[in-house]
């Protein structure tokens, strides 16, 4: 029994690097895109730009990740825009994350008192300086706990990439099932690996929440 588990775990570990790189890749795209969209949406005066961002956010928040990955991987592939499965997964999950985090950062900015902005302008800062030096640092701090929850969700969602044959943990599990038939044990091991990967994230979020005193 232990032998089998060891064998399965070693086989599944082959997928960990892809799981982690999809998670990190998508997280980087999501944070940069979400911050950009969130700042622009909160401060721009152009109605058209605000409307475009709203459409983007609503689309990506109300369509399942699996549908978006299929559109990018199978759909765009069929019209000549062929991406690798890992690239497609990073791009798809990152674009969705951008929409999720846009809302998160927007909520952060709107939680700030208007006096912060007025005071910064009053001491002679430009609007750009105000956002970069005064508002953004505070808004990001408020956004940290939901950002952490998003990261955990993202780690789990990378398993969806197995449906477009990205060689991550779940994909290795599915392949292993067809060769060994230890179905129950394999999926329990896969679930266990995800759990072990997410536990440090849970811890990190808890300590961030404590440190920055959420709820102020």
């Amino acid at each position, binding site marked *: 029994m232990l032998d089998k588990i060891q064998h399965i775990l070693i086989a599944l570990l082959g997928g960990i690097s892809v799981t982690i790189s999809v998670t990190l890749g998508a997280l980087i795209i999501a944070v940069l895109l979400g911050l950009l969209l969130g700042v622009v949406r909160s401060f721009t005066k152009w109605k058209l730009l605000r409307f475009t961002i709203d459409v983007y956010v609503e689309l990506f928040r109300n*369509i*399942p990740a699996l*549908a978006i990955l*299929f559109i990018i991987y199978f759909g765009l592939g*069929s019209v000549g825009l062929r991406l690798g499965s890992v690239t497609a997964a990073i791009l798809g999950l990152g674009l969705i994350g951008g929409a999720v985090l846009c809302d998160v950062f927007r909520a952060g900015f709107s939680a700030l008192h208007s006096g912060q902005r007025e005071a910064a302008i009053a001491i002679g800062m430009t609007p750009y300086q105000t956002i970069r030096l005064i508002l953004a640092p505070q808004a990001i701090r408020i956004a940290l706990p939901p950002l952490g929850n998003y990261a955990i969700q993202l780690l789990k969602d990378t*398993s969806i990439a197995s449906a477009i044959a990205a060689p991550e943990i*779940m994909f290795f599990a599915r392949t292993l099932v067809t060769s060994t038939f230890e179905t*129950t044990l394999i*999926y329990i091991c896969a679930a266990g690996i995800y759990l072990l990967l997410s536990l440090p994230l*849970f811890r990190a979020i808890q300590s961030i929440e404590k440190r920055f005193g959420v709820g102020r």
Partner: protein
Amino acid sequence: MIEFLEVYVKYGSQWFPRMADAALVSASLAFAGFIVAFAIGLMLSIFQRSPLRLLRFVATIYVVVFRGIPLLAILFLLYFGLPGIGVTMSAFTASAVGLGLSFGAQMAEVFRAGLEAIHRGQREAAIAVGMTPLQAFRFVTLPQAVRIISPSMLVTFIVLLKDSSLCALITVNELMLEGRALATEYFLPLNIFVAIGVFYFLIAWPLSLLARTMDARIRAKQTRTL
């Protein structure tokens, strides 16, 4: 672009009925999963407030475990894994149970937030007028909590509906699987998966708007009563 849209004019009448039927399966799957999630979430939130340490411990472990495991792993385990130890379920049942188990942990958090928002004086007053603790929970605390959390419950339902697309991978004949079947039949994956995305969007978006309106209304009421 014009070519892209022409495809829909040409095949729309063949695709639409099949997608609509499959969308109904998705919707009923989401409802079934949500009912299970609701029951588990409510039970866990009661466990979390129990004076018994063991029950609180069980609830904590449940939430940590099921928040850390991907839905896909749970679905595969239930549908492909359990038959290995003698438990066989239909794909639909396995999906409803899997969605319920996974989202039960999220619903527990939703309930907890709602119950914590009710002032403890409410419960104390109910007990003072002679209600048992169970009655106080059932008739005083819970109804108020449910009203506060109704927008978050709706949001959870929307996420569950979107995630029900994963059940295609364990052969539930819902929207996403129909999309894959159509894609292999017609060789037009871009058109078909975009149409599938639109279907999900048309179900989920009105619900998202409703959740936002409900949330705004509840917040407005709270600031008024303060």
